[in-house]
């Protein structure tokens, strides 16, 4: 009964799906590359420097320095979300890609796992590049204070998996492209603004702080902030564990929901 088993039935097939997405992306690498290459510069200039002129932080640090961990968390989140919400929905519903793949020895669970791994890869590429840009601009902007920052790359696997899984969950229940407006407005937008990327949480009312604890992005930003500033704290391990638990939950949910959508 492996096809319809209760626990995820994952094989090497997940990697085949990952390879398919890689090949499809590399076919259009020029357009993809241009967007990825320019984005962080634009963001750092617009948000960090332009907006930063009007922001004064209690801590005395420059706004662009405060912003660095947030950008490192936000833009990979967007990359994963874009890939596994819109992208997966197109493959699922408009192109019949999933249907064609599950007619081969690859299981639904393999497909979903491969998709999530690919979304995670996009997030990692995106995050590594932002980090690289931060290092390059460091002599002028001082965005990175500690070599620990490099750990943000491996740590980024976790939010990559998490946001990919959440997005797949949504793609599996969406019935039309227009439904993604809900996803964007109800999930991604609040995460974007209240994830602790743009303003310090400490200054917020207590209820916002409590709310923030439930926001995955806040934990990601906290970890990155610790790594980038070099102020390592035990609470970062707590955040890591929190993220791991939530990631497993959404991964299993994504597999179950997609099975319900594809197997009938």
């Amino acid at each position: 009964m492996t096809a319809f088993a209760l626990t995820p039935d994952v094989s090497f097939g997940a990697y085949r799906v990952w390879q398919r997405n890689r090949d499809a992306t590399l076919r259009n690498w020029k357009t993809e590359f241009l967007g990825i290459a320019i984005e962080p510069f634009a963001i750092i200039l617009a948000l960090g420097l332009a907006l930063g002129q009007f922001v004064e932080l209690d801590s005395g640090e420059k706004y662009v320095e405060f912003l660095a961990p947030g950008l490192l968390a936000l833009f990979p989140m967007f990359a994963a979300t874009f890939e596994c919400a819109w992208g997966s929905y197109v493959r699922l519903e408009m192109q019949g890609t999933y249907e064609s793949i599950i007619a081969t020895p690859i299981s639904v669970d393999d497909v979903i796992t491969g998709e999530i791994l690919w979304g995670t890869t996009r997030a990692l590429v995106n995050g590594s590049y932002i980090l690289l840009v931060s290092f390059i601009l460091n002599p002028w902007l001082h965005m990175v204070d500690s070599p620990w920052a490099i750990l943000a790359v491996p740590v980024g696997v976790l939010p990559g998996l998490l946001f990919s899984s959440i997005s797949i969950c949504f793609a599996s229940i969406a019935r039309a492209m227009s439904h993604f407006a809900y996803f964007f407005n109800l999930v991604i937008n609040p995460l974007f603004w209240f994830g602790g990327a743009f303003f310090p949480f400490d200054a917020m009312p207590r209820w916002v702080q409590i709310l923030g604890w439930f926001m995955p992005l806040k934990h990601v930003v906290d970890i990155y902030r610790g790594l980038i500033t070099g102020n390592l704290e035990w609470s970062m391990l707590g955040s890591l564990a929190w993220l791991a638990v939530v990631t497993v939950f959404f991964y299993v949910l994504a597999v179950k929901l997609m099975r319900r959508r594809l197997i009938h």
Partner: protein
Amino acid sequence: MTSALIEARGLVKHYGDFVAVDDISFDIREGECFGVLGPNGAGKTTTIRMITATSPVTAGNLRVAGLDVAEEPRKVKAVLGVVPQDDNLDPDLLVRQNLEVYARYFGLSRDEVRQRIDEALELFQLDDRATSNVDDLSGGMQRRLTIARALVNNPQVLILDEPTTGLDPQARHLVWQQLRLLKSRGVTMLLTTHYMEEATHLCDRLVIMHRGKILVEGRPHDLIAEVAGPQVLELRLPSPERDALLAEFPQGDGFSVEQVEDLTYVFGGGPASAMAAERVGDPHRAHLRPGNMEDVFLLLTGRGLLD
């Protein structure tokens, strides 16, 4: 000991309360082309989806190449080549990439299948489109590419769900020709179609399904002889004239008459049919022709729209 590659016994499929496939049994033997005919909604695609381990079996026994479909879906899928009812080629990949990436889903490397892919592209006359976008291909080319894709894993059974629906006559004949070639090479096939001519041409044996059940099973020409008879008389006459003509037929001779709108069909009329046609002397009003699969299909499944 059985040489059946696909063996279904008491196969049932429910969607909620709806019974889509209702206790069907059949064998598909090595090297044969097995047809499944049936009106829209008969349960053909549902049956195929169960065979290809993409839809769970509600009840019954289903084995492919000796493997239980529910127990070993991955192994079952590894020995099948599937051409789905709706094309689902990968528009994000080029024509040749479609085949290479699909082969990889079976764990086959590019080197292993290079020659097979070259052959398939040539056989399906796509070799000069290898680096095209899938979306730029005509409908017929897309269909051929889908069939080529189903062959990359060298399947034991090729499963074709309406392979020629929506194709123009040229493209359809090209596909038939290629399927005949595959058949002559010993490829076992399961084929569904709404083209009776296609079924008669290609299938060694076929079943006609209706509302989830199998109505008949047999070889096309046997079915035509048994159900429709060798000759069918079509009459387009005002009823008094028609009745006068039919009164001439020897009574109790086992012929049957079916009235559809202004057209009367006489099945199994024997020499009397030929005489009647001659008497009217106008092929527009009385036409004697050989029985065909379409007669069988319509006699068994009725003429009303079923969906």
